[in-house]
């Protein structure tokens, strides 16, 4: 079990030592980690949850690692998304020999590109190789990218396996630091600003979380979740500590109205980083929430907090969707969509508090898994499309399939998942959460779930309709490299398959 953490850490170290082969090392590491995850998932599916005491010390002295259904599912999600994103990133950055990415689509296309609309691109024309804008060429691999990239995976895997409050804090902190470092690797002003904002917000959130768990530890003397569940009792300290912990996690999860740091961070970031952050990094704090809220906190959370969470969730769904509807750029649209989708997760959480035996928690977890696959696929596909157009202005992305057929397909499939339409995993998640809302007699939550799907359709079809518009003859389009398209496509296909093969996944959930 510890291999899921040790492998990426070792890979990170190795990629520092052998920097020339870092991309290959990363790919190998991620593959091996995924194999470990799969073996662990198989063992859990067959034999139930597995516990491991690090160093053989039992709690409260030692650290307990627990691989149960949700843990292995999130491990698998991380493994799969990482595999696709790593393969993608390996091609995304410039190759050592400086080969140019992309070839023009059709011989005659670039003749028409020399027009008033693209005079800038005509300036640098040299010989047979057409000049392409900066976004169309591969950026250099930022210094230290691969070690940090693998470090993030180690932090995630550690978070999913731990069963101890302080370890959760440490893993969350490492996750944040790695995430900030990756965002900062854009080398431009917007990226640096976004990274600093991300860092400050996440640090404040961490402080809240740390303060909360410190109070709990001072009061009850345990950090292990199982032990805390037995020891915890209502009281003044608990009444302060729990809101602090929840607030810290909510900010890290970018719940409305604490979402302001997320869209700029994603909008400015390199595409593979976007995919990993949106699909996995925000699932970290969510995972902590599903460990704590239906777990040790369940008995002591005042109902008002559940209602508050539900209200914020609805606010997030509506606000995130409305903002996504206004975004002129593809990456920002997808980023705001995350704000809306996080709303679903919180809605599920609030319903799970109201009715712990209902399907809400299963729905929330399933939705999180489906969202992880679909959102990563969408960012990767967007990256391929951006590479072929050289920009991400939605209005000008006409007939994107011309430059990247598979990526456009991936975008459409992922969109079905984010809207929560069948046969995608998003539909199953939406159905379960909706079922929970109906069972709990919460018409507002039901309307939020169903209406959220409609809103998602509204903003996503702004992009999808472009696939049916006649292509703009003046736009120079290069073909996106296949290595950028396939990872997006395969992830998108997985996000749809999750909807028709949901039985084994749901079988692993409580």
């Amino acid at each position, binding site marked *: 079990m510890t291999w899921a953490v040790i492998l990426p850490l070792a890979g990170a170290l190795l990629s520092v030592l052998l920097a020339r082969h870092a991309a290959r090392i990363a790919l190998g590491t991620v593959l091996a980690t995924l194999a470990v995850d799969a073996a662990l998932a198989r063992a859990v599916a067959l034999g139930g949850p597995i516990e491991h005491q690090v160093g053989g010390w039992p709690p409260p002295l030692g650290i307990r690692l627990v691989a149960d259904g949700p843990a292995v599912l999130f491990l698998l999600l991380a493994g799969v998304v990482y595999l696709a994103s790593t393969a993608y990133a390996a091609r995304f950055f410039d190759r050592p020999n400086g080969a140019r990415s992309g070839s023009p689509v059709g011989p005659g296309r670039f003749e028409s590109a020399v027009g008033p609309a693209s005079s800038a691109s005509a300036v640098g024309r040299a010989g047979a190789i057409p000049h392409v804008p900066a976004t169309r060429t591969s950026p250099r691999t930022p210094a230290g990218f691969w070690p940090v990239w693998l470090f993030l995976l180690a932090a995630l895997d550690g978070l999913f396996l731990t069963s101890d409050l302080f370890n959760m804090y440490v893993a969350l902190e490492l996750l944040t630091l790695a995430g900030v470092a990756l965002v900062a690797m854009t080398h431009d002003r917007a990226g640096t600003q976004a990274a600093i904002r991300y860092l400050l917000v996440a640090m404040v959130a961490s402080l809240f979380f740390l303060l909360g768990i410190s109070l709990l530890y001072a009061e009850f003397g345990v950090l292990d979740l199982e032990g805390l569940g037995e020891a915890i009792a209502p009281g003044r300290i608990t009444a302060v500590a729990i809101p602090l912990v929840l607030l810290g996690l909510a900010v890290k999860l970018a719940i409305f109205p604490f979402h302001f740091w997320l869209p700029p961070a994603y909008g400015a970031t390199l595409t593979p980083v976007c995919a990993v952050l949106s699909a996995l990094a925000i699932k970290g704090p969510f995972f902590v929430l599903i460990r704590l809220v239906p777990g040790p906190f369940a008995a002591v959370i005042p109902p008002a907090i559940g209602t508050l969470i539900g209200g914020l969730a609805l606010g997030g769904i509506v606000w995130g969707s409305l903002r996504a509807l206004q975004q002129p750029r593809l990456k920002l649209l997808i980023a705001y969509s995350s704000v809306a989708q996080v709303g679903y997760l919180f809605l599920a959480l609030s319903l799970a508090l109201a009715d712990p035996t209902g399907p809400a928690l*299963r729905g929330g977890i399933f939705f999180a898994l489906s969202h992880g696959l679909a959102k990563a696929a969408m960012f990767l596909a967007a990256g391929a499309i951006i590479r072929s157009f050289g920009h991400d202005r939605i209005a000008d992305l006409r007939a994107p399939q011309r430059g990247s057929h598979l990526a456009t397909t991936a975008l459409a499939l992922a969109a*079905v998942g984010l809207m929560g339409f*069948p*046969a995608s995993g998003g*539909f199953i998640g939406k159905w379960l959460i909706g079922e929970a809302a109906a*069972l709990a007699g919460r018409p507002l939550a039901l309307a939020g779930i169903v*209406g959220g799907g409609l809103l998602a359709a509204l903003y996503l079809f702004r992009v999808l309709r472009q696939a049916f518009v006649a292509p703009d003859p003046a736009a120079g389009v290069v073909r996106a490299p296949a290595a950028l398209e396939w990872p997006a496509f395969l992830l998108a296909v997985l996000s749809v398959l999750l909807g*028709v093969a*949901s039985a084994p996944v749901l079988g692993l959930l409580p």
Partner: protein
Amino acid sequence: MSWNASLPALTLLSSLVPGLFIFGLGEERRGARTALNMAGATVKVGLVAWIARGLLGGETYTTRIPLGAGMELLLRADNLSVLFALLSSILWFVSTVYAIGYLEGSPNRSRFFGFYSVCVSATVGVAFAGNLFTFVFFYEVLALSTYPLVVHRGTRAALRAGRTYLAYTLFGSAVLLTGVLWLQALAGPVEFRPGGALPAAVLDGGGELLVIFLLLVAGMGVKAAIVPLHGWLPVAMIAPAPVSALLHAVAVVKAGAFGLVRLVHDVFGPSGIIEIGAFPILPAIATATILWGSIRALSQTRLKRLLAYSTVSQLSYVALGTSLLGPTAAIGGLAHLVHQGLMKITLFFCAGNLAETLGIHDLDEMDGVGRRMPWTMTAFTVCALGMIGVPPVAGFVSKWTLAVGGIEAGQPWVVAVLVASALLNAGYFLPVLHRVWFRPPAPLPYERDRARGEDVVPPAVGHRSVFGRRIETSWLLLLPTLTTAILALGAGLFANAPFSPLTWARFVLAGGGP
């Protein structure tokens, strides 16, 4: 999984798998695409026919795919689903032939045929759905997968129509989903059962049940184009003719009407409808739709728009027949589900032939066109008369049965509605027929434009020769048109034959075999 248990799933896959392969084919692979399409369509018709034969022999066909607690994909062939599946798969076969001819040489054909197949697969899923979860599942797939077909041409007008279509259809899906989740919260997972699936304790819920019923009716009603949820249908006629055929006959509106039948007979049940006090609502909506659609059709100047409003009106015969809760009326409604499909697909094929061969879209360009395209216009005439209810075309049979059923159910006003509607139908179809056969031929639109000195290209599909004789249009367009017209005529002439739609509708209501 045994052979019988896998048949419904195989029927669904018989169009889905070729469709997925077609997506991957290059644009120039015309032969492979056609082979995949026709193989899928043939296998599908064969499988549904096999299932129909088996049902008569008392076999059962049920596929169950569990997706999680309370979520089960249940595909089950019963008499009602086979009626719809058979209609849909036969018309898919015919309209695929037509679409191959129609779209010859136009761009994005792989995308078109891919989504066409997905739509038909979703329709079969709707037909075979054995519980509400499965129904919603495929209903939503259908809602999404038709969008690419509506906007296929990619013009500004097509995209605008697509937006309207999406707004209506996604709204319908959302309302349906809400209603179903709410209902299942009260009643648990609902599996369709003839006579009603809801236990008496749930039906006592009163007002809440009525609201749920209205939500479900609204959800289905968007696809079934009942007033005031019909606005998308006339707008969507901008799409190519094979898409109109799909919307009006093969899949979409039929799925809505079929859903209403399921809702009334297999979810709430006639007694349940009366118990929750919903009885007068559906007949009233259906009547209003029948009349309003026809009245709107009177003032149309474009042929396809006229046909679209005619669908709005005609489709509510199905709703009316179902909602009267009497067996004979329901038989009439179900038979009309098939009859209307056969007649309407013919009319849209004819409109497509006119548009592709002669460039005719407006009614006032149709003067004397019967002389240029006698075969097409004969098919048109047969089905237009059938829509009015002239014997012996199929439309007469279903309307007659409906009227008898109305009297039987103690609702004699139905006869008045039918007569009024027939008069209105005559009011908009007969002037067209008069133009076609009795007016002197007018110059074609492109000839007229040329005479004005504009540089226009004649329509794409020219006259073709078969056995050395010139025929009026491509045989790929003419053959499907004549086939469905003959089927519509046959369904009326041989209404009491063993496999006619009317006979099958009787099986559905009788339950079990013949």
